[in-house]
């Protein structure tokens, strides 16, 4: 999207977060290139959600730096002022929560939910906002006549798709996803994954997806990071890591998947 593919969009160095004496995540470093999807897998408590929260600016890490390639050039998001970081969070970034209720305004109609980010960056034409909202509802396979319904009238899968539409409407360059398919049944999961894969490819998005579901990363992620007890134990191309796991924990993780 912004031309040079050899400059990382996001560059993380030595990121650590401690909860008192306990480790949240320790010494995490990686580069994310434009258009790339990075999966972070690990069991519960392995620090993957902590890492994602630190990256998205929801938590303040104790050490490390997060260099994001903004339109104006590389900036460390940790030393940014709060207004700058919040502006970034509603323009270039998006965050998809595991529970759509955390990411949606449940008292506001679907159209209002999608339009909120547009209005937050200055859209002031009702007709345009509504047309964009209808377009985006279509892209996430929600019928246009549901635009004035509240999310509470939607099924779980629809809510999750609405949350995705709401996040992608301003054309972000980096999307953080925390277990986007958690809590959905398998057929709905499959459709959502299909949809996500299409959107990511079509828009050239970079994404960081936290999940414990190896099938999700197999489908979506180009590269994979495996975390255990706050440390990154293995990283590499997704197929490489999943088909030829080197670390003992990764081997355990891969072999734990039930074969149907």
């Amino acid at each position, binding site marked *: 999207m912004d031309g040079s593919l050899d400059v990382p969009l996001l560059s993380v160095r030595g990121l650590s977060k401690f909860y008192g004496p306990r480790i949240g995540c320790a010494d995490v470093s990686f580069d994310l290139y434009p258009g790339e999807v990075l999966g972070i897998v690990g069991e519960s408590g392995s620090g993957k959600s902590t890492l994602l929260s630190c990256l998205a600016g929801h938590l303040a890490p104790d050490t490390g730096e997060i260099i994001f390639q903004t339109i104006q050039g590389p900036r460390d998001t940790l030393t940014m002022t709060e207004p700058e970081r919040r502006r970034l969070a509603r323009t270039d970034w998006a965050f998809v929560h595991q529970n759509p209720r955390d990411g949606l305004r449940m008292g506001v109609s679907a159209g*209002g939910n999608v*339009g*909120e980010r547009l209005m*937050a*960056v200055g859209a002031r034409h*009702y007709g345009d906002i509504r047309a964009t909202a209808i377009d985006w509802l279509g892209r996430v396979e929600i019928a246009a006549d549901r635009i004035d319904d509240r999310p509470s009238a939607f099924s779980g899968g629809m809510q999750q798709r609405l949350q995705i539409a709401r996040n992608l409407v301003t054309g972000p360059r980096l999307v953080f996803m925390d277990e986007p398919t958690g809590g959905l049944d398998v057929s709905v999961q499959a459709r959502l994954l299909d949809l996500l894969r299409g959107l990511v490819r079509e828009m050239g998005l970079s994404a960081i997806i936290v999940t414990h579901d190896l099938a999700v990363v197999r489908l979506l992620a180009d590269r994979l990071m495996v975390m255990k007890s706050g440390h990154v134990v293995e990283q590499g191309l997704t197929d490489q890591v999943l088909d030829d796991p080197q670390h003992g924990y990764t081997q355990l993780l891969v072999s734990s998947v039930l074969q149907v």
Partner: protein
Amino acid sequence: MEDYNFAYLDEQTKRMIRRAILKGVAVPGYQVPFASREMPMPYGWGTGGVQVTAACLVPEDVLKVIDQGADDTTNAVSIRKFFQRTAGVAVTETTTQASIIQTRHRIPETPLTEGQILVYQVPIPEPLRFLEPRETETRKMHELEEYGLMHVKLYEDIARHGQIATAYAYPVKVEGRYVMDPSPIPKFDNPKLSGSAALQLFGAGREQRIYAVPPYTQVVSLDFDDHPFKASKAAHDCDLCGAAESYLDEVIIDDAGGRMFVCSDTDFCAHRRAAGHVGRLGEAA
């Protein structure tokens, strides 16, 4: 009268409130927290406005109190009596003679002049409250000028009703900076907020906030490019005085569907009738 300090509140309290008012005047539209006192009336009856009025009153002041435009309703009468007893100030019903006007939910029709103070009673000072329940978050939004959410409310209005259906407490932006709740005045009154010659003070007792619009301050009602703000009123003339440009109350007069529209500003209506204007159901004075 001697049993009370002048205007009921003690001097240190009035000093504290005046400091909040000065800060509010310095930062138009910004909600200044203040240590609201218990007043001898229930919340919702104008405890915030009464405290602001008490802090502004001097013995030479002439006080007018209105409730929904009327001088003779319970809320207006009780507050007026309260200050007559505790401050001994002169009172009036005539807008042009008053130096301080405490109001609940209206701006007088007669244009205000320099030197007058208009004190509003505010139930909920935070315009973002019904969309964002967290006080920490709304403060941050004011701090960073993140007002997109206010338009989400207007969007919802149009989506549901085909037009901006918010008819009172219509959000405004003050001097291009703070979004403010103008208290539950009808949106008909919103244009009068802007560029007013009078000092406008807002007091919210329960929520402990004071804010202000200094004279000649620009106040803009929020809207969409394709759904512009429109000050609305009932499409009638006043049935008593015939005024076409004043805000009207609808009054049901019998149980056979009969109704009349009268000026909500009783002082404005009375002066017009005294000057010989007669409406559809009025009698010549």
